[in-house]
C-alpha cells in the first residue's frame, strides 16, 4: 500500500490517481495522519502543496522516522521537504514557474534513467533548492535544461526519490513511466 500525505494541494488527487495505476493508495491530510495505515504502508509519498517545507514540521518528523525503513517519494513541495530534512536550503527563485511546461535532462549516470534523456514536464513552483547541496547517498539526477535547477533526486541506497516537477500533470509526457520506474526500483 502507498500512503500519500496531502499538503492541502489542488493537485493531490491527480497524484492519487496516478499511483493507483500501480498499487492501493491511501491519502490523508498532513494534519490528520492515520498512524496504523502509515505504519502498514510500503511507500510514503509527500504531496505537492502551498508554502515551504518549514510550514510542515509533522511531515519532516515522518520523513526522519521512516527514512531508510520505507520507500519515500516527494513531489514538488514533497521533493523540497526531503531536501529540507537533509539540510538543503529551499529558497525563492527569480523566475517563478507556475503552469509551465519545460524540458528536464537526466544528468547522472548513476540513476534509474538514461543519461542525457530529456523529458517534457509540468512545473508549479516558486521555490527551489539552493546549491551546492551535498547529502550522503543523494544525487541530483535531473536538471532543468535551461536554468540548470535541480529537478529530481535519487537515493537508491535508502530508496528515496523526488521530483521538483509534477509527474501527474497533464503537461508532463510519460509521467506514468517515471512513477513506474521509481516504484519498481
Amino acid at each position: 500500500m502507498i500512503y500519500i500525505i496531502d499538503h492541502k494541494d489542488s493537485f493531490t488527487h491527480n497524484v492519487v490517481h496516478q499511483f493507483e495505476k500501480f498499487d492501493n493508495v491511501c491519502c490523508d491530510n498532513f494534519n490528520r495522519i492515520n498512524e496504523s495505515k502509515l505504519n502498514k504502508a510500503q511507500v510514503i509519498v509527500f504531496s505537492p502543496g502551498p508554502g515551504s517545507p518549514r510550514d510542515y514540521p509533522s511531515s519532516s518528523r515522518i520523513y526522519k522516522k521512516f527514512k531508510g525503513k520505507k520507500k519515500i517519494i516527494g513531489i514538488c513541495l514533497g521533493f523540497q521537504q526531503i531536501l529540507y530534512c537533509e539540510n538543503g536550503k529551499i529558497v525563492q527563485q527569480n523566475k517563478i514557474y507556475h503552469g509551465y511546461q519545460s524540458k528536464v535532462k537526466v544528468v547522472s549516470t548513476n540513476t534509474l534513467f538514461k543519461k542525457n534523456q530529456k523529458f517534457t514536464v509540468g512545473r508549479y513552483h516558486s521555490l527551489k533548492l539552493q546549491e551546492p547541496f551535498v547529502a550522503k547517498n543523494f544525487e541530483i539526477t535531473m536538471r532543468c535544461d535551461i536554468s540548470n535547477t535541480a529537478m529530481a533526486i535519487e537515493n537508491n541506497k535508502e530508496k528515496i526519490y523526488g521530483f521538483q516537477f509534477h509527474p501527474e500533470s497533464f503537461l508532463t509526457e510519460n509521467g506514468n513511466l517515471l512513477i513506474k520506474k521509481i516504484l519498481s526500483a
Partner: protein
Amino acid sequence: MTSQDHLKSIGKSKKPFVIYKSSKGFDLYTNFSKKIILTNKNTKNFINNITKNKSKKKNTDLFIGFFGYEILNNLIGVKIKRQMGINFPKGIFYKPEKKIKLSNNLSYKPLKSIKLNKNFKINLNQASYSNIFKKFKKKIKSGETYQIKICTKYRNASEIDVLDFFCRLTKSNMAPEAFMIKDKNYSIISCSPENLITKRRHIITTKPIAGTLKKSKKLNKTKALEFFKRNIKETKEHNMIVDMERSDLSRICISGSVKILKKKTVEEYKDLYHYVSLIGGKLKKKVSSLDIIRAMMPGGSVIGCPKISTLNLLNTQEKEGRNIYTGSFGYIKFNGDMRFNIIIRSILNYKNCSEISVASGVVIDSNVKHEFNENYIKAKALMDLYR
C-alpha cells in the same frame, strides 16, 4: 403561446420565476411550491434530502437556485471572518411546479419606463487594489498561492426591470450558462459563460474557462487560438486550472477515468472568444450530491490555486462579502442529476441596490493597471444595461 407571450404574462403576474439557458433556448421555471433559504446549518441536510424526494416523473422534479460564496466555503470547512455586507441570504432554492420552454429570441417590452441611475461607485479604488495586489504577489513568490483573484464591486441605487435587463443582456451576450431569478425582494441576472458541473447518471464533466479575448474584425477562431497559444501568461493560467479541475474530479471519480475531453480549445461567442477545456470522469459508486458539490465548489477558475490556501488568503483580504459572486447557480434533480454554473458576470439587485462584482487573476507576471482595467471592462458590459 409564443415565448414573447409567456414573458409578457410572467412579467405582469408578479410571481417569482427563474429562467435558465438550455441547449436550444431557455427554460422558464415558476409556480414555486417550496422556497428554501439556506444557512450554514441547513445546507447539508437540504442537499442530502433532494434525492430522497419521490420522483413524479415530471420535468419539475428538481430544486433550482443558488449557493452563495460563503456557504460554499462553509461546506468545505474554510472560515470567513466577519465581513461587511448587505445581509443577503447565503443561498436560496425553489421547487418549481411549472416549466416552460422558451426560444433563444427573448424580447420583452417593459410595463412602465423607469429612469435608471447610470452612476456606479467602486468599493476599491486603484490605490487599495494595488496594495492588495502587491501583497498577493509576495504570497505567490513565497509559494502560498500560484494564482489568486481579487474581487471588486460596483454599486448603485436604482429600481430596475429585471426581465427587460435579462432580455437585453441575451441580445448583447448570449451566454451558455445565462440565468435570471426574480423574487419579491431581490433579483439576479447573469450572462455566465462557465459550466462547473454537468452530471448525468454516473458521468460528470466540468468546463473551465481561462482566457478571454474581445472580438475584432481582424480576428477569427484560428487566430484567436494562435493568440492564446502564444500568450504565455494565459497559457500558464489555463494549465493550472486544467490540472486543478482534474484533481477536483479525481476526488469523486473512479481512478483512471478522469480525462481531458477537449484540451485548450477556442469557443466563439457574440463578442468574445474564450479559451476553454472540457474535463470529465466516471463517478465512484457511493458518491453523494454533497460529495460532488464539496469537491467542485467553489469553482477553481474564479478562486485561484491551490484552492484552500488561496481561499484563506482571499478571505483575510476581502473586507466585503462576495454574496452570490463566484457561487454557483443551477439545479439538482430528484434522480441526482445536476447542472451548475459559476456565478460571474452578474447583477444582484437587492432592496433596489445593484451590485456588480468582477475579479481578475493575479499571477506572477500580472500587471496591476492592466488587471484593474480588465475588471472595469468586465463590469462595463453589465453597467451598459443601465441606460
